[in-house]
């Protein structure tokens, strides 16, 4: 990946709010200019250059983040365009409120992946998030549009209150999937033996539109791109919210 690289070199376990470091905001800035930007961390604020080694390059070409042992929250939150690649794990709210672009996390993601930032009514509104590991609770909460694909499992309340969009979790999900879901798709790579609470059993069949999802994920290397089938068990719900959403559990 060409572009700018940020490599964390601070103390292990340091929590940093990364929402200010978006490709569209950093585009055209030099490494020194980026290093001088203030960033919320721990209980205060520090310059980017005080915590990260900043390589030369234009973030418009892509932003590579190496967290090392830091806990980087809100990576790509609010991103509208461009590409972010996280080599390692991301903290909570990665891609929250994102409206476009590509966020790729090679490790695990924390809670509220592609969800809503605190105080905001909607989660992710567009773009693509790809996670190579697992994700925490409330993935794609209040999501409106876009695709989130997680190779491993996601936690509880996956696609909770989802308005539309697609969350594809290759390793299945924790309890209460699709809670309050209005529309949208929660695709699971694991069989689901019984209908989750609030969902009706819609039966097993091949789903043509999943071919379109697979084409949309081409190049991500995600689990669904590699899945050889589009056959899935459909559960319709959340019936308390009109029943226009769905959980598809692959056979």
């Amino acid at each position, binding site marked *: 990946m060409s572009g700018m690289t940020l490599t964390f070199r601070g103390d292990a376990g340091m929590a940093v709010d990364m929402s200010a470091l978006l490709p569209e905001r950093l585009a055209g800035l030099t490494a020194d200019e980026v290093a001088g930007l203030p960033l919320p961390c721990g209980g205060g604020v520090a310059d980017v250059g005080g915590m990260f080694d900043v390589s030369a390059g234009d973030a418009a070409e892509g932003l590579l983040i190496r967290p090392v042992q830091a806990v980087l929250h809100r990576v790509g939150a609010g991103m509208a365009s461009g590409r972010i690649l996280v080599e390692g794990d991301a903290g909570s709210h990665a891609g929250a409120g994102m409206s476009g672009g590509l966020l790729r996390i090679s490790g695990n993601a924390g809670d509220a992946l592609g969800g809503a930032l605190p105080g905001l009514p909607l989660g992710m509104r567009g773009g693509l998030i790809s996670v190579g590991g697992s994700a925490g609770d409330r993935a794609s909460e209040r999501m409106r*549009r876009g*695709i989130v694909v997680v190779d491993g499992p996601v936690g509880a309340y996956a696609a909770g209150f989802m308005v*539309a969009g*697609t969350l594809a979790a290759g390793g299945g999900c924790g309890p209460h999937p699709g809670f309050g879901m209005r*529309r949208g*798709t929660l695709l699971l790579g694991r069989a689901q033996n019984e209908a989750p609470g609030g969902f009706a059993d819609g039966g097993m*069949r*091949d*789903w*043509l*539109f999943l*071919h*379109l*999802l*697979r*084409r*949309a994920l081409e190049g991500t290397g995600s689990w669904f791109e590699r899945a050889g089938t589009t056959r899935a068990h459909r559960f319709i719900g959340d019936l308390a919210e009109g029943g*226009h959403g*769905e959980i598809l559990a692959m056979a």
Partner: protein
Amino acid sequence: MAEMRINGVRIEDTFAEAFPMTYTRLVITADTPAWVEAATSSLTGFATSVIGCGCEAAVERLLTPEETPDSRPGAAVMIFGMSTGDLAKLVVNRVGQCIMTSPGSACYAGLLQGTKRIPLGGGLRYFGDGHQVSKKFGDRRFWRLPVMDGEFVCEDSVAVAKGIGGGNFLILAASHRQCLAAAEAAVAAIRSLPGVILPFPGGVVRSGSKVGSKYKALIASTNTRFCPTLRAVEPETLLAPNVEAVLELVLDGIDEAAIRTGMRAGIAAAAAGGTAAGVLAITAGNYGGKLGPHHFHLHEVMGEVTE
């Protein structure tokens, strides 16, 4: 200009006169090539001429599973109309009645950039009676409509663009059988090309028309100058005594280059057997150049393949 011959076949010094049209392209898929054919033959049925059918349509080419959005066999279909408004009504009606009804079919936009967009699934979604589902992947929105064999997947809308309709040439031959053989060769050559379709049955027209009629109610009537059975009584006949049959190929294309390439390939194929195959001459239809802005002069079109 000097006389032009290809394998002895005389190429008349005249031109085809063509008109601006609006077109779109759909990608139709189904479980098997046979069901693709069933869906597209229905979609492109009764679509030979805008005059009587409202639109002109045909399969542009067949698509492999690797070329289609859902990895199934498919076909690209081009539909030409006189305006975006006409096309909008005709396309959504045809897709609704001919593709949505065809088992296992799906319909996608085959033209993503153009002057405007017209509805596909966006107009048909209400058939889902509230159970329709929208999915947006990237910049493309699709509708999933519950139907009796599962779901009908249809792209929300498709672009339209400016094209050209009415490119043509006529094959004059010594017998009907030979004329048909030459026409079939021309059709095969043109159908292998992108961006151009032949909307008439089998790609061939046998009832070419002229403007006007002795009957006031008709705006067009049979092209008497090219009817071999009227040669003795039609003072303006354009047929030599040895011409027994005439067939016409009408081409609609995305631009002048597509029409020109198609005409050239078709004429070359029709004349490939030469006069020995009974093909005597190739000519073209026009209205004196006063109606259509696109003129395809046969000698220019065939400039590089003469003897």
